[in-house]
């Protein structure tokens, strides 16, 4: 939960090392960081993400109300000093629920983008570096999973493992949603990594390393990986936002996270039947969701502009 902006962290961490290794004034990372610092979009999105992280880690900073405490006599109450966003159908405080909804949503987004990147990057590295039959095999497997439309695949997988209406624990459902997203999304990361690895393998410095007698492990970890990481990390940042939306979409269909878990998707799903009577129960979680996705997509945009040399 602490590593909200993987690309930015990695940029900061990799900076000194790269500067040493390259003769020029700054490597790709240092250069990109310098570009990034000048973008207002980057600072706005980072600020939003920090607030969201605080919300997820320390919800008690924002509210002391129990998000699951229901008072049916207050069902659908309008916003008031008592509950500033009003109350939902069950009489629960929408503000408290929206704050507590940050943690599961961001957990799913973080784990899903980490999983996608790790699986996709390893598969892409192997495919791009080894080429030959292992490339063919991995590419075909990736095509099979890419052939499944996301929502459709998600519905099939999640309903297979949980019957509709079945009550499941919090950890189990979060794990299932994360794994579903990873299984359906890794081909994208794999393609990006494969293309980058194919390109890097042809470079002179890789040939030089090979001529010096470096083994495949050393070539991959020391030469190819550092030069192919940027596009995958940019992808991960944008996907973080996309996966938050995907989690909400699955929850909206009633197959993702569900009731004991408080998440924005769950809140929107519960609100949809009574939009006319209790509009605030749709509006506030939706607003939180949009702002969160927007923050990560904006950050990804800024990071891409800074780290993708072709875009300059």
């Amino acid at each position, binding site marked *: 939960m602490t590593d909200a902006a993987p690309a930015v962290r990695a940029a900061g961490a990799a900076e000194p090392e790269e500067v040493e290794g390259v003769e020029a004034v700054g490597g790709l990372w240092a250069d990109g960081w310098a570009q990034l610092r000048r973008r207002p979009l980057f600072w706005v999105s980072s600020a939003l993400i920090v607030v969201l992280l605080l919300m997820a880690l320390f919800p008690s900073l924002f509210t002391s109300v129990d998000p699951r405490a229901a008072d049916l006599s207050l069902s659908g109450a309008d916003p008031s000093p008592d509950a500033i966003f009003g109350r939902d159908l069950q009489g629960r405080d929408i503000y408290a629920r929206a704050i507590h909804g940050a943690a599961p949503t961001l957990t799913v987004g973080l784990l899903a983008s980490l999983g996608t990147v790790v699986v996709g990057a390893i598969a892409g590295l192997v495919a791009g570096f080894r080429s030959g039959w292992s490339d063919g095999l991995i590419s*075909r*497997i990736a*095509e*099979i999973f890419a*052939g*499944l*439309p*996301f*929502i*459709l695949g998600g*519905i*099939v*997988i999640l*309903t*297979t*493992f949980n019957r*509709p209406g079945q009550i499941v624990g919090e950890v189990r459902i979060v794990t299932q949603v994360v794994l579903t997203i990873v299984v359906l999304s890794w081909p994208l990361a794999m393609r990006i990594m494969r293309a980058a690895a194919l390109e890097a393998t042809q470079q002179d410095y890789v040939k030089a390393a090979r001529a010096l007698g470096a083994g495949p492990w050393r070539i991959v970890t020391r030469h190819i990986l550092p030069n192919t990481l940027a596009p995958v990390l940019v992808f991960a940042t944008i996907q973080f*936002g996309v996966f938050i*939306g995907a989690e*909400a*979409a699955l929850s*909206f*269909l009633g197959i993702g996270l569900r009731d004991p878990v408080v998440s924005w998707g769950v809140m*929107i799903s519960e609100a*949809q039947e009574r*939009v*006319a009577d209790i*509009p605030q129960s*749709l509006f506030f979680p*939706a607003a939180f*969701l*949009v*702002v969160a*996705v*927007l923050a990560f*997509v*904006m950050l990804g*945009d800024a990071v891409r502009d800074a780290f993708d040399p072709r875009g300059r």
Partner: protein
Amino acid sequence: MGRYTLRRLLQLVPVFLGTTFIVYFLVWGLSDDPFAGKCGQRACSASYVAEMTQRYNLDDPLIVQYLKYLGSLLTGDFGQTFSGTEVSTLIANAYPITIKLALVAVAIEAVIGIAAGVLTGLRGRGFVDNLVLVSTLVLIALPVFVTGLVLRQVLGVELGWIRPSVPNNPTIGQLFIPGLVLGSLSMAYIARLTRTSLVENKRADFVRTAVAKGLPRRRVVGVHMLRNSLIPVVTFLGYDIGALMGGAILTEGVFNIRGIGGLVFRGIQQQDTATVVGIVALLVIVFLLANLIVDLLYAVLDPRIRYD
């Protein structure tokens, strides 16, 4: 070109087999009791179980079941639901609506997206450019179901401009708002793609030559710049048609459109496995073929690209 097409078609075969097998395995292979809850509170009668076991070859090992299913699928037989309706009839009723919706969505996103992209791409940095950039960001961040729920509530229930629930045989006009919702995400991508591609081509040699020749600006922009800049946009639109034909589950759910998305969702909720597998197989074929056609079209549109 012919050899390339053939190779791509051959590559589709393992992908199709893999995808359909995964789905078949998930819906048939992993359920311990396919008859759970099928006959209300009671256990199913022996004759019903026997008939269904025979209809779906449930006694065979999974792989044999799958091959038998595949065999009948290839002869155009999608099988029957548990209640005996032909799955192909269900698809034939629902699919035209989904196709209509997808085409409406693509038309809307193409018109608005390209217009916005051209507007900002030609003007360069400025107020309009920033405005479009921010709106595309917001469109990307807005989940489809949120846009759908809000528009249904505001336009349908409060203002009464549209019907909140789309009727059985919808006209193009009734599908306009659902199409707008469905296409909103891609609209943002198209606007950005058009803009980037125009800005790139603005400095290209052939544009400079065209200006130097003294061609009117209208012709430089319309013929030389747009035709070249729209190639990636057209390919994106092609992929999108393929994707939207299988991805309209959320929009169809919000606006209660009786298309293929609703059908597959109900099929899963009622555990009507035959419907689910049949529709997924169909959608996968549509998706893969759409991608193939787009790749071929790419070479037709841009003579610089040669497959072989």
